[in-house]
């Protein structure tokens, strides 16, 4: 369970989050939509304590993130996988070592045989060939880096996964594979997740609920069907624009 209450954050004169309240239930997949620059990444980072909010609370697993000790926070982070927008792979390490660092349990991390098989499993889940393990991040394409980032985030079998635009910049086939993976982690392992995305169709297919973040607040929230039926001008405006965009771009059609 992730509970966000009245969260606010500004940078200098710019107010980014202005009273975000959002609750993600156990086992639920929440898609978070919103135009770029509205603070979706800031919101995700605040959830794992990488950014300190000015006001408001984030409670994960009944733990108030802001008040945790260093140890408790790092233990909590061990149960949350975080997929960074651009992969954020450690560029001095190869793919195997990167994904291995996702094993947040120290015993699993140390056991080399276990690590090998888990890394291979995770790479297969994101549709990367086994040869990728020995490559350095600089030898990979942007889409491959992103998928390695996803593999790293799920390697430790986290209870929660926060995805920051996991499918943007991927080709349609791999975007579908990632959407299916998100769905599968949700249904088979009961993972609770928040998926920031621009891909409205992907969001509607994978998410249990969809939330729209605009101007620092959650403007609308509901099931995909609620969303499609919504009369809310903010929702209509967002969907309108997105469907126009996706019908003119080859990647967005009929996925």
């Amino acid at each position: 369970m992730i509970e966000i209450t009245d969260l606010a954050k500004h940078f200098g004169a710019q107010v980014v989050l202005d009273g975000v309240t959002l609750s993600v239930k156990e086992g639920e997949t929440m898609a978070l939509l919103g135009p770029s620059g509205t603070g979706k990444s800031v919101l995700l980072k605040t959830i794992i304590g990488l950014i300190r909010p000015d006001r408001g609370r984030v409670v994960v697993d009944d733990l108030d993130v802001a008040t945790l000790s260093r140890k408790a926070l790092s233990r909590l982070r061990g149960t949350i996988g975080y997929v960074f927008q651009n992969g954020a792979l450690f560029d001095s390490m190869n793919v195997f070592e990167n994904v291995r660092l996702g094993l947040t349990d120290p015993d699993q991390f140390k056991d080399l045989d276990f690590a090998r098989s888990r890394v291979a499993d995770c790479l297969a889940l994101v549709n990367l060939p086994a040869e990728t393990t020995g490559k350095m991040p600089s030898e990979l394409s942007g889409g491959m880096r992103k998928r390695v980032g996803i593999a790293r985030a799920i390697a430790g079998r986290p209870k929660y996964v926060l995805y920051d635009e996991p499918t943007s910049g991927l080709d349609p086939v791999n975007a579908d594979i990632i959407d299916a993976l998100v769905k599968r982690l949700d249904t088979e392992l009961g993972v609770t997740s928040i998926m920031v995305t621009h891909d409205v169709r992907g969001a509607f297919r994978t998410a249990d609920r969809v939330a729209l973040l605009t101007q620092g607040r959650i403007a609308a929230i509901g099931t995909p069907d609620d969303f499609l039926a919504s009369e809310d001008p903010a929702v209509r405006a967002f969907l309108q624009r997105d469907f126009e965009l996706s019908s003119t771009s080859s990647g967005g059609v009929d996925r």
Partner: protein
Amino acid sequence: MTALAIQVQHRVGRAVLDTLAAVGRFAALVVEMGRGLTEVRVWLPRTLDESWNIGVGSFFIVLLISSFAGAVTALQAGYQFTGNIPIYVVGSVVTESVVLELGPVLVGLILAGRIGARYAAELGTMRVTEQIDALESLGRSPASHLLIPRVLACLLMIPILVIFADVMGVASGWFASKQALPVTDADFIYGARVFWRPFDAWYSIIKAFFFAGAIGFVSCYMGYSTKQGAEGVGRSTTGAVVTSSVLILLLDTLLAKLLLSV
């Protein structure tokens, strides 16, 4: 006039506050590193790697710089000390200037450029590409994974490099004075011993240790607190080199005053 005065006051006040804030953040980072010291199994292997990198990477440049410094000191001493100053003084001047000043300071300044720039750029890039955030998101401590190994590698390797520089500088000064001046081995050794105190060697190493701290802490802090993309990395890198070089010169003066006053 008064408007200008107020504006100046305003600017100065701002600068003071900014500096205090930076000092506060630096102190917080040092505390964080102190806490990270408990994770020996994380930082020890990385410290050894970093030390190896620094040592191998800087060995030849250090030997090169110090051998030129020693030789030039010998030649200039020979040029200056004519008339009734005994020629063996060349031996004293070479040993003392290399060990007390040239070895540690030249090596410090060169390594502020080499190691300081490298650490600030590495950590700055990791910051702006969210690798540091990623490390934290995996429940791991940037202090024990990234900062402690770099600072310790500086503290370990820079004094060792300075010892090599001292030996090399004196040796090349000796060689140069034999070649170019009417100085015999006996003269040089006599001169070197006359004014030598064992503390001089310690002083060289103590200085190296402080300079190493300046380079390690400043470049790690600057890199770690990088903001705003590639431009920010550039700013941290030059900032790290300039700040640690200036700090080395200040420490050099301060240590001379504190440790050498009779």
